[in-house]
Structures are given as structure tokens and as C-alpha cells.
């Protein structure tokens, strides 16, 4: 569904991504792991052009963007509309209700019929367990609830691909579960997902493939049973050891 070739990105003199290749097949869940500063969030943000790569190709089957050349704004918008994004800090629209947040994309961007969209939005909110909160404003919700609205808002535009940027990192520990459960449901429904996460257990359980990235390169990738349970590379082993034994 999505193929990335030779993706490079620097911020000033700091090279964050050094030629990344990756492929996402339809219906698969890819977990991206890596130490902080490894470039994993930048990689995710390059997939929907929130960061503009310096070089490389981000290609969907029917829409390829080659960043080696100057890319028109219109091309970026088209690329962006392929995927839905869930942010670490939720980024809900504070001046709109839960329902309005979810309806904003389909109504304002896709110009779809308001009544149809409303019915769909309520269904999506039901799916994330927040139907009864539809008329509240974001500040009236807990972090976990806000993030679930964030997921519903991203789903509402009916993207081909769902991107998650550390969706549980800003949450209190007891709220992480409710968000991960929604994500697990989506995976079971067959959504194609790329998830940047620190939740090793979640990756182990849900992901079809794990990509371990460090220093702007993919160090190791494969099924979670290999990469997480029997990592070959020393850097992967060290990272997993640190995460699983934080006090050592």
C-alpha cells in the first residue's frame, strides 16, 4: 500500500533520517520503536508530509511524491489526505465539541452531507466508547478520552492508513489501557496502521512487524517474535533491556 524509498531528512546540520526504506502492506500493523532522538517520530511525520523530507519517495499505489524535486503544495495535501494522524498531545480543537471535532474533516474538507457525517461520527464515537460525551468540549474530558476522540477524528476522514505518534506517552498509566484497547480493535478490523510507541507489550501483541530505528537508520526489522523476543542486533538488545529494566 505504501512504499518509502531513500527517505532523508536533516534539521540544519543534524541529520535525523539517513536513507530509510520501508513498506507497509494493506491491513498490516507496523510498530516503530527506538530511543528518543532516533528519528522515529520524524519518520512518521514524513509519511504525511508534516515534515518535508529532503530526499526520497513516499508512494501510495495511486499517488507518488518524490521529494528530491520541489513538491507543489497541492501534492502534499493530496498525500496528507491518504492518512489519518493521532498525536501524542491529542491536538483536539478546543473550541469545538467532541462531535464537531469528529465531523470537521468530512464536512469542511470532504464537503460531505452533514446529516450522513453526523450519523457516522456518532457511530465512531460509539466505537471508541464516547458516544455519551459527544456534546462536551475537550477540556471536559480526561487525557484518555481526548485521545480516543483524536482517534475518532482521524478515522472520520476514512483514510487508507492510520498513523499514531506515541499515542499513549502523555497519558497517566491507568488511562493507557483504554486507548490501546481501541487501537487493538482497529487492528482487528483490518486497519492499516503505523504506530510509533514505547509500549513493548502492545507491539508484541498487535504488530505484524516491528521496525527498530536508531540514529536515523533502520537497525532491525521483522515480526515481533524475532525483533522483540530474540533481537539480533546489539543496539536493539540494549534498547529493549533498558526499557524493560529501567532501574538497572
Amino acid at each position, binding site marked *: 500500500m505504501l512504499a518509502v524509498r531513500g527517505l532523508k531528512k536533516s534539521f540544519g546540520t543534524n541529520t535525523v533520517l539517513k536513507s530509510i526504506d520501508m513498506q507497509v502492506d494493506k491491513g498490516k500493523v507496523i510498530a516503530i520503536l527506538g530511543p528518543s532522538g532516533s528519528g522515529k517520530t520524524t519518520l512518521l511525520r514524513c509519511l504525511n508530509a508534516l515534515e518535508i523530507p529532503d530526499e526520497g519517495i513516499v508512494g501510495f499505489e495511486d499517488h507518488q511524491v518524490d521529494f528530491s524535486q520541489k513538491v507543489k503544495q497541492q501534492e502534499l495535501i493530496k498525500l496528507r489526505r491518504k492518512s489519518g494522524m493521532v498525536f501524542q498531545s491529542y491536538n483536539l480543537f478546543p473550541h469545538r465539541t467532541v462531535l464537531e471535532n469528529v465531523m470537521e474533516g468530512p464536512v469542511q474538507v470532504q464537503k460531505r452531507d452533514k446529516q450522513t457525517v453526523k450519523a457516522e461520527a456518532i457511530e465512531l464515537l460509539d466505537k471508541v466508547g464516547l458516544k455519551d460525551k459527544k456534546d462536551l468540549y475537550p*477540556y471536559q474530558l480526561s487525557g484518555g478520552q481526548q485521545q480516543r476522540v483524536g482517534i475518532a477524528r482521524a478515522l472520520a476522514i476514512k483514510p487508507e492508513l492510520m498513523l499514531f505518534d506515541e499515542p499513549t506517552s502523555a497519558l497517566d498509566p491507568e488511562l493507557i489501557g483504554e486507548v490501546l484497547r481501541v487501537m487493538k480493535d482497529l487492528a482487528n478490523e483490518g486497519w492499516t496502521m503505523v504506530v510509533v510507541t514505547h509500549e513493548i507489550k502492545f507491539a508484541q501483541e498487535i504488530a505484524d512487524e516491528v521496525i527498530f530505528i536508531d540514529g536515523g537508520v533502520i537497525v532491525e526489522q521483522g515480526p515481533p517474535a524475532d525483533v522483540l523476543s530474540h533481537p539480533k542486533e546489539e543496539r536493539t538488545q540494549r534498547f529493549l533491556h533498558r526499557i524493560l529494566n529501567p532501574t538497572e
Partner: protein
Amino acid sequence: MLTSNMVFGGIVIPWELLQQSFWPILIEGIKVTIPLTLISFFFGIILALITALVRISNIKPLRWIFSVYVSAIRGTPLLVQLFIIFYLLPELNIMIDPYPTAIIAFSLNVGAYASEIIRASILSVPKGQWEAGFTIGMTYRKTLFRVILPQALRVSVPPLSNSFISLVKETSLASQILVTELFRKSQQIGATNLDQIVYIYILAAFIYWIICFVLSLAQHQLERRLDRYTAR
């Protein structure tokens, strides 16, 4: 009803004169000062919004022009600006009355100051809000108008109200280019009652104060309405 002058330790308050002058001055306030403020503020805000949007955009030459405009207006006295426009327009063979001349000057002035308020308010909206707009497929313009400006507006209401209330008082400068507004009316009444002129000016001050007080009540109402989506 007080009809005679009251005496406080040698100070004689001319109540009768004040009662006679109150309505003529207040009427100029309602007929001239308030419309002058409202119209100038309206055009000023439009100009400010355009200026702010240009200055956060990446249209280089326009950005430069609007930066010079803001700098020049902020760097010169309003009274001098009024005089320049008052004398410049006839030089350019543009013959208009003092009243519209004042509107032009005040609008330009508000435009410069308020543009900085609006620009800062736009910049105060977290970057994540732009990104959230982009990721649901919005263009820059759509994100600006649907996501960023509504939030920026909330932030800018208190400082813009401040500008508005300042403008009410600054319109008194229009008296200097022969606009008969609240203050000029007081001057005219004072000129025929030179002995009591200070009381006429105190009366004028009092009327400005009432107008500004009512306006700040309106500001609180507006802030309350806009507060419905924020935790307090």
C-alpha cells in the same frame, strides 16, 4: 433639582452651567465620538487582520511593506499623523471633510497597533493545532480560518478591548482638526464660560469615563461568551 451654585470652602461649583452643558456635550459624544470610534475601529481591525496575516505569511515584499507601515505608525505621534493626513489630502487634491479624515487617521493607527495583537495571538496558538488541521486534510487557509483564528480571537479580546477603549479617548484629538466631537464641544462651551472652564472639562472627563465604563462591561460579556470552551 439643584439650581444655585454650591460653595465648598471657597470653591464654587456651577451646577446650573453643568446641567445646561451636560446634554450638549453628551449628544456630541453619542453623535460623533462613539460613531467615530466604532467606524475607525471596524476599518482598523480589518486592516490589522490583513497586516497580521501578511506578516505571518511568506510573501516577502508585502511583508516588508506592512512591517514599515506598522513601524512608522507606532513610531510617530497620533496627533502628528492626524495633522499630516489633514494637510496632505488637500495637497493631493482630495477634498474631504475633517470627520472622514479623522476616520482614515484613526483606522491606520488602530490597524498598526491591533495587527501586533492579532499577530501575537495567532502565534500563541500551539503548532499542534495547525498540524491537526493539516492532517484532516485542510489547506493552510482553511486551517487558519476554521482552527487558528477562532482560538486567536479569544486570546486577543482583552488586549483589543484595551485598544478600543484607548481609541474612545484618542478621538478627542480629532478636535484639533476641527471635528466637533465631545471634547471640542466642551471647548466651545468653555470658551464662553472662561471662569468655569475647568468644571466643563471635568464634566467632559466624566462623560468619557461613563462611555468607557459601559464599554468595559460589554467587554466582560464578550469574554464570558467566548469562555464557554475553556476551563476556568
